[in-house]
């Protein structure tokens, strides 16, 4: 998903940075949005990310993949932000379940059963920030496990286990009490973990 940045030449620092922003702002915004699940928060995070990149631009511009550096800043900011918001949400919500889930239930009562895509999005919204981040990097950004690990600053094993837990939580959320997934009526939605197709 991310554009591959050419190694910048010397000179024209400001113009280079502006090209970098032109190339990357949208995809960073979408990635941030999917991680924090809130557009205004995502916009703030991307702005903060680009400010930080700008401050280090003389060094960043010499990197092979400046965008990978920007993505790493964004992801770390987003996870920290997500944790803060999760804590706030935890303080505000009763122990019987997240507000979003209850809103979905209410919507389902009014409009009938939510469609499978909405169910999946609802389940994604409830994942812990780090788990959702791994899924975004793997299935939206199409990063390999190694690239995801590098972005998150963790081991490949941690990426695998985090993805596995995230997928398991999605499976639990999607499979209805009778064992049939609303997304796939055959009930075989998730049975294994496997590297995304590259």
């Amino acid at each position, binding site marked *: 998903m991310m554009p591959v940045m050419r190694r910048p030449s010397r000179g024209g620092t*400001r113009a280079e940075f502006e090209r970098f922003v032109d190339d990357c*702002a*949208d995809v960073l915004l979408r990635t941030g949005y999917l991680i924090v699940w809130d557009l205004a928060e995502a916009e703030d995070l991307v702005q903060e990310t680009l400010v930080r990149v700008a401050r280090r631009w003389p060094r960043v511009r010499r990197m092979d993949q400046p965008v990978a550096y920007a993505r790493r800043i964004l992801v770390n900011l987003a996870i920290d932000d997500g944790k803060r918001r999760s804590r706030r949400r935890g303080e505000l919500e009763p122990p019987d379940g997240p507000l979003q889930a209850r809103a979905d239930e209410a919507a389902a009562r009014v409009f009938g059963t939510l469609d499978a895509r909405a169910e999946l999005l609802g389940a*994604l919204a409830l994942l812990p920030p780090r788990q959702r981040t791994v899924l975004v990097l793997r299935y939206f950004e199409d990063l390999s496990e190694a690239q995801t690990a590098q972005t998150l600053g963790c081991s490949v094993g941690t990426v695998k286990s985090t993805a596995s837990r995230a997928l398991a939580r999605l499976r639990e959320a999607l499979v209805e009490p009778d064992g049939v997934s609303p*997304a796939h009526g055959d009930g075989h*939605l*998730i049975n294994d973990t*496997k590297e995304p197709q590259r």
Partner: protein
Amino acid sequence: MIEGLEAELRAAFAERAHDVPAQVGERLRRIDYRPRSRALSPRMALATGAGLAATGGAVVALVGLGAGTSPAFAGWSATPTRPASGQTTSAQEHCTAQLAGALHPSSNLPAGGWETVLTDTRGPFTLMILRSGGASATCFNGPSFTTVAANSAQTNGGASEHVLSGSSATGAARGSTSVMGLGGSSTGPVGPATQSHLLASGGEPYTFVQGQVVAGVTGVTLARSDGNDVQATVADGSFVAWWPGSVGATSAQVRSSAGTATQQLTFIVPPAGQCTPSPSAASSCANGSASVPGGGGAGPEPEGPLAGK
């Protein structure tokens, strides 16, 4: 099979990502991030790091502004931005309310009838030129402040300057104003203009340029002495631009249907008694200044936006 969920995840992410409005990305691209042009020397980097560590919680605020930008002006853009929903209306309400609420009998300023002739928005900041009869006002509105300066026409044909109000972050600014093109001496497309170096109440410097352009001019970009450009807002023969810091403008690139021309800008400090031009017709004279009790808490000062010195 896991492939089913993978495909569903990809589709779900793509669908949700598609919801992101294009204008949000545009907003992000319009921000001036001020990329650093040189790496810090090791000694400087060390000192900066130590300073950041010592300041703790202040780090985020400073980082968010880019190098050399005051926290008071976070979100400023070198290119005028499209106003957020309600931004212009809100700024206008604040401005006209301060104009109406801070009037003094001696000011000769009209109580109402203020019409906006030019609006410049840069991120959360709105700068407006308003006019009512022969009087004009410049209003600077930000997230936590509104500062208004007004000129009223005098019976003797001159004008007087009134800094009506200033509150909170930028307060009643003080500084110096220099001028160019006095008495119609300008030979280029940029006519009479003023450049004011001002200080916010927190001590943060900012620079404010306004002036007139000949008919047919569609765009003005000011080149500053530090090599950076600031695009002005142009409307009805007037232009206006401002930026954080005290770096001055040295030239203007002027666009019209005939093409693009560059004009050198030479601002000089006018002698006492000399009137300074205003893009909204009125002018202010250094020795004709009068201040009006302010409505915003910061003390009224004869030196402020548009004030001669």
